[in-house]
């Protein structure tokens, strides 16, 4: 029996990392939103690594925060340790990573969702979408509840036709033995979506009391208080360490001996796994010259003894997993509490999406997260945020938001997905960004706060604070550019003490700062500012001045990109009517339907000559319209 259960602006299916951001974002831009999930106890659950951030990913978290999303704030409240990575390298690649208390993380996120105005969170399993004339208008649950909505976002993660594989065992399941979503997957196929089968995996968990930590190396958090969110003011000081140990020849021999029982090599696993997250059996087979692999032992929370064995993702049979653990120093007597497993699931081919994350086939339907072929909580959250923002804005009749590759890693992520697709679970890497130097950890607020404010995601108070910071940065940069430092004895002493060569002449403070051995603290001594400046401001001033030359180069590239971004391709373009396009290019263009010439040029198989021809054709259309 079906019944009318309610009507919303936006419905979000799923409440994982994508779903949580999507629901919150839709509600925050002003849409009446409902989130529906299979199990309310699994909101923002971390089925794999209990950690947030890292290179590229950590910057995504900062971007989510600058756009008014939740992930940064939530991890700031619930981590057990935090570290800044790549501190010895340049500013473009610094990144924060936190180990989460996975239980607290869930609880906090659930509470935030429950507290959010405009947002309803309920339990239920969606089995069908209501689609009328290729427009999505609601969802129907297993229990027959019919919910109407202006827009719908699907964030089902690895639940779609999920199957867990553990040794010779294979059974239908979502992650962590949750109920999988089978009907919805079939329904998406019936609606005409192309689905692919992907695979990912997770390592075993062991009991902390059974670990001999004396045989491992300690990995403490940073002593300096750190935070992802620009709004965080309370810092967690009581941190827990992680531990490092290694596999050895014994481990590798054991794996080798049991390869015939591995579903990876017996052919039981058909889905494509990610190269950047290989199982331990994969590592041993593919890199058999390596005498050892790193294993990090990560506590899953403050109130649990479960420890995540990072580096040991596997789908070998349970008994082999126990033996593998016993070969590793520190884990000889480890009690395995949960076995590792591989999971296969359906994902939709992401080239079926517009850059807004709306599907091309069905209007007002959006997808985000692992269902789009990505991997990782941060990638999921970034997409969830954008899908939520756009579903919300669309529902209330406002213009949608697309971030470009030069705006944010989130822009790179989504553009890669919808333009190039992916043949393995997609993970963000800093090398995927052409403008890495512009997409820094430190300037996420400068890049995105304005955008967040304009769509209602950022409150006025925070925006004003941001404007003050921006102004202070500009003022201080201006001051350093006009401040002239004379080669006095004191100045020479400071310079030589830091390993630099003496000044021959007077020099602008900004030029002195550009010397590799100088940082802002030196300048502060030689040419102090009259006003008190926060660390955030001086960090910004230092980076912007020190790397001005490189930043300038990147900005010039962005300018060229923008010109091509501004050349829009009409939705109704007929690629068959364009003579001269190479066959492969024509096929790819028809498939991807790029919105701009810039996007077209990024499709593999579309070469510069095809882009030229496309440009000529578009101009021709313009002239034709004028002459009519």
């Amino acid at each position, binding site marked *: 029996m079906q019944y009318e259960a309610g009507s919303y602006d936006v419905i979000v299916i799923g409440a994982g990392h994508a779903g949580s951001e999507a629901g919150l974002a839709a509600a925050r831009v002003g849409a009446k939103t409902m989130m529906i999930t299979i199990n309310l106890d699994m909101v923002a659950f971390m089925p794999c690594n209990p950690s947030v951030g890292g290179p590229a990913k950590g910057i995504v978290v900062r971007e989510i925060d600058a756009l008014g999303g939740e992930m940064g704030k939530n991890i700031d409240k619930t981590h057990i340790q935090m570290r800044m990575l790549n501190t010895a390298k340049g500013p473009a690649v610094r990144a924060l990573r936190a180990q989460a208390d996975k239980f607290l993380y869930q609880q906090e996120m659930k509470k935030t969702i429950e507290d959010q105005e405009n947002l309803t969170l309920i339990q239920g399993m969606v089995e069908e979408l209501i689609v009328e004339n290729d427009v999505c208008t609601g969802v129907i649950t297993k229990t027959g509840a019919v919910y109407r909505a202006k827009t719908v976002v699907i964030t089902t993660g690895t639940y779609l036709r999920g199957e867990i594989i553990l040794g010779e065992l294979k059974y239908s399941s979502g992650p962590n033995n949750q109920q999988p979503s089978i009907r919805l997957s079939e329904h998406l196929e019936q609606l005409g979506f192309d689905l692919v089968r992907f695979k990912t995996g997770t390592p075993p968990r062991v009991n902390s009391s059974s670990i001999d930590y004396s045989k491992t190396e300690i990995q403490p958090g940073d002593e300096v208080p750190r935070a992802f969110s620009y709004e965080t003011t309370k810092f967690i000081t009581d941190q827990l360490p992680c531990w490092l140990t290694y596999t050895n020849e014994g481990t590798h021999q054991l794996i080798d001996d049991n390869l015939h029982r591995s579903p990876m090599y017996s052919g039981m696993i058909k889905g494509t796994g990610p190269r*950047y997250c290989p199982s331990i059996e994969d590592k041993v087979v593919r890199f058999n010259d*390596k005498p050892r692999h790193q294993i990090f032992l990560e506590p899953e929370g403050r109130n649990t003894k479960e420890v995540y064995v990072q580096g040991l993702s596997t789908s070998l049979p349970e008994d082999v997993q126990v033996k593998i653990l016993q070969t590793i120093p520190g884990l000889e007597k480890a009690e395995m509490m949960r076995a590792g497993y591989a999971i296969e699931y359906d994902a939709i081919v992401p080239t079926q999406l517009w850059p807004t994350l709306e599907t091309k086939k069905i209007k007002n339907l959006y997808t985000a997260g692992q269902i789009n072929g990505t991997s990782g909580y941060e990638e999921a959250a970034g997409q969830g945020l954008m899908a939520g923002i756009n579903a919300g804005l669309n529902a209330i009749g406002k213009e949608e938001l697309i971030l470009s590759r030069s705006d944010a890693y989130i822009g790179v992520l989504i553009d890669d997905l919808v333009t190039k697709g992916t043949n393995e679970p997609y993970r963000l*890497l*800093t090398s995927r960004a052409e403008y*890495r130097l512009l997409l820094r950890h430190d300037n996420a607020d400068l890049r995105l706060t304005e955008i967040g404010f304009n769509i209602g995601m950022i409150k006025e108070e925070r925006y004003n604070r941001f404007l003050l910071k921006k102004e202070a940065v500009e003022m201080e940069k201006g001051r350093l550019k006009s401040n002239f430092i004379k080669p006095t004895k004191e100045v020479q002493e400071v310079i030589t003490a830091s390993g630099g060569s003496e000044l021959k002449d007077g020099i602008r403070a900004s030029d002195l700062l550009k010397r590799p051995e100088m940082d802002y603290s030196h300048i502060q001594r030689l040419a102090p500012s009259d006003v008190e400046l926060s660390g955030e401001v001086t960090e910004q001033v230092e980076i912007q001045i020190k790397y001005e030359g490189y930043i300038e*180069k990147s900005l010039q590239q962005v300018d060229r990109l923008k010109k091509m971004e501004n050349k829009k391709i009409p939705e109704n373009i007929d690629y068959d009517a*364009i003579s001269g396009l190479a066959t492969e290019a024509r096929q790819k263009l028809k498939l991807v339907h790029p919105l701009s010439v810039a996007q077209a040029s990024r499709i593999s198989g579309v070469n510069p000559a095809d882009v030229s021809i496309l*440009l*000529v054709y578009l*101009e021709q259309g313009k002239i034709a319209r004028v002459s009519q």
Partner: protein
Amino acid sequence: MEFDTITAISTPLGEGAIAIVRISGDEAIEIADRIFKGPGRKGLLEVNSHTIHYGHLIQPKTGEIIEEVMVSVMKGPKTFTREDVVEINCHGGIVSVNRVLQLILSQGARLAEPGEFTKRAFLNGRIDLSQAEAVMDLIRAKTDKAMNVALGQMEGRLSKLIQNLRQEILQTLAQVEVNIDYPEYDDVEEMTHRLFLEKGSYVKTEIEKLLHTAQQGKILRDGLATVIIGRPNVGKSSLLNSLVHENKAIVTDIPGTTRDVIEEYVNVRGVPLKLVDTAGIRETEDIVERIGVERSRAVLKEADLILLVLNYSDDFTAEDEKLFQAVEGMDVIVIINKTDLPQKIDLAKVKENSTSHKVVSTSLLEDKGVDELEKAIASLFFEGSLETGDLTYVSNARHIALLGQALQSISDAVEAIEMGTPIDLVQIDFTKAWELLGEIIGESVQDNLINQLFSQFCLGK
């Protein structure tokens, strides 16, 4: 205007008396102004549109005069492309036109793609609708043909060298990337400044060598450094005069050496020769004595082609043999001159000494054998496979330009490393060099790197 500034040689490549190099785009006039020096005070920025001006092109850094020219300045929109256009009329011939083109490229213009002027004319609305299809066909055809030609050339040694070099850069980049994306991964050596410098300097040297040894590119850019040697009175001067008189010569003075070395450019069947130290030959005819002198050694070392002249009517002497030893391993054409006189030379000895060299007999006095000599020169360097047609030429110039830019990027990177700049910034110029080299052989970028990353290192959780 929304396009960058482009340039190309607009006249067909051949032996015309004049050639035209065209520049189009926002910065066309500015670029021309920087390298032009007229007799008057007015710069090109101040002259009226659609006027033509006499003067010289100069190397702005050194003030060196490159070429005598007539320059037309035409401001958009009343031009072929509707953009600002400058047309430089210079002397015909590969060497001089190329120097002009290189000079313009060095000032920031980009080498035009095939059909690009026409494309712009269209995009800027100058060509009407009915011609649009034709333009698209043109782009297709020209690009394909250019690509074929480029690929044809690429199958050789140059292509292999570039691929090896790219692989070298790629491995270095993958190491940098893995340090960045997997900071805790301990299997890979941290890419230190010292290591980076080592790699960077290596790549830089290799590109320099490539620029140096890319024989075809070098021919087009500089001409083939050619040295005439032989004992006194074998006819070096006559050979020189014969080459110079048959072919229009351009004489350049290069100051700064102990005595000015004079270089003369001649074009032999499409092969531009830079005849080195011709003054020496003219003045003294004493190059044999000077073989021992340091400077002459240097001249020989720099030479791409040696014309070794023997006397048909004299014995093959120990001095001749010494000459052969001095040029061992180089590209040599042996010229047995004075065949108009009775034979005295022992041809067996000549043959014995010139195992791998081509031997040509001439009587310069009677103008005999010069044709054969010119053929020998041309075939030695073109090997009959290289056309001097437009497309071949363009793709060559393109390679040179790209190699030059790649060298610039890698030099920037090396300089930055020496300054202690963080490696992830140095990587920007490193990647740039890699992309530029990739453009030469038409390979894409991003995916490559990620593939390299995961095949080179064992990464992941």
